[in-house]
């Protein structure tokens, strides 16, 4: 027995699975589907057949999604995306830097790793440090890569400024977390290092905000025109 509401729910799930967002435009498409179905039923078709015809008329989910994707994101949405990408990138850098410091600080000589091969060494010793350090580094790098990928539509300059700001911000936080880092960077006084990094961060953040704003409000390049036929 055909269950119309279940069929519509399945259709909705299929649309959602391809990335069509709710409530807009999915609600609008569903209203169209229902209206077309009613018209088909008035012309004598069964509920099941009318649903099939209406769903066909609305079109395939992947093709619709591809067309909706061509519409540029609203400025607020773009700024939010930039904010999210920056946060993810920053966490990535922090994890990477922390992993590097952890690896540098560890004694990986054969005597310490191979010489004391025990469960304790595996869990808390240098071997654990090596595994955790490398693992964190890969995870951090993956986060940075993801953040970069989500900013595909940004201009090249914005990406560079964003990258620089994230590195600078990561460094300043690391200065707080690992006082030795200031010494490594030949800055004897940690507070001066913080000040220096602070200036870099302020300048780069202003730069990225300005670039992002210009990028958001300038008219987007007209991609292939949206067409009502597939």
């Amino acid at each position, binding site marked *: 027995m055909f269950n119309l509401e279940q069929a519509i729910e399945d259709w909705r799930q299929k649309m959602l699975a391809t990335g069509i967002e709710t409530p807009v435009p999915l609600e*609008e498409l569903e209203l169209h589907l229902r209206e077309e179905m009613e018209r088909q039923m008035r012309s004598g078709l069964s509920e099941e057949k009318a649903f099939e015809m209406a769903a066909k008329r609305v*079109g395939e989910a992947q*093709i*619709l999604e591809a067309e*909706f994707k*061509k519409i540029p994101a609203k400025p607020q949405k773009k700024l939010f995306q930039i904010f999210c990408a920056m946060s993810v990138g920053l966490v990535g850098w922090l994890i990477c830097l922390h992993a590097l410091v952890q690896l540098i600080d560890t004694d990986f000589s054969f005597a310490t790793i191979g010489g004391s091969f025990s469960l304790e060494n595996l869990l808390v010793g240098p071997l654990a440090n090596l595994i955790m350090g490398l693992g964190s580094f890969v995870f951090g790098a993956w986060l940075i890569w993801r953040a970069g990928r989500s900013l595909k539509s940004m201009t090249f300059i914005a990406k560079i400024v964003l990258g620089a700001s994230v590195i600078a911000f990561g460094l300043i936080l690391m200065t707080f977390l690992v006082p030795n880092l200031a010494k490594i960077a030949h800055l004897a006084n940690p507070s001066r290092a913080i000040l220096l990094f602070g200036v870099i961060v302020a300048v780069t953040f202003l730069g990225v905000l300005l670039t992002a704003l210009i990028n958001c409000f300038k008219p987007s390049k007209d991609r292939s025109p949206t*067409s009502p*036929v*597939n």
Partner: protein
Amino acid sequence: MLKRELVAASAEPLILALLARGESYGYAIIQDIKARSDNQMQWTDGMLYPVLHRLEHKGLIKARWGESETGRKRKYYSLKKDGHKALAKHEEQWSLVSAVLAGLRKEKYV
């Protein structure tokens, strides 16, 4: 049946021209286009919405949620000031194409 490319190129001016007559919603727009073109313009129904959303993004039309006479939810679209300007430009360009074609056809028979 009209060629796919021509249907695509004429979508924006046709939607703007329809909305210049008063606010409307997706389903009615599709039905109107089909009736006016004597079913020669076959749009995939769902593909109308990306076009409408693009026009809205460009600031040519605006949308509001309302209700039909039967109480069903509907999204109504109407033309904005920039939409009227864009429509005038489209009409000018399509008239030019039509005039050039008509001129060439006339020359053929002289």
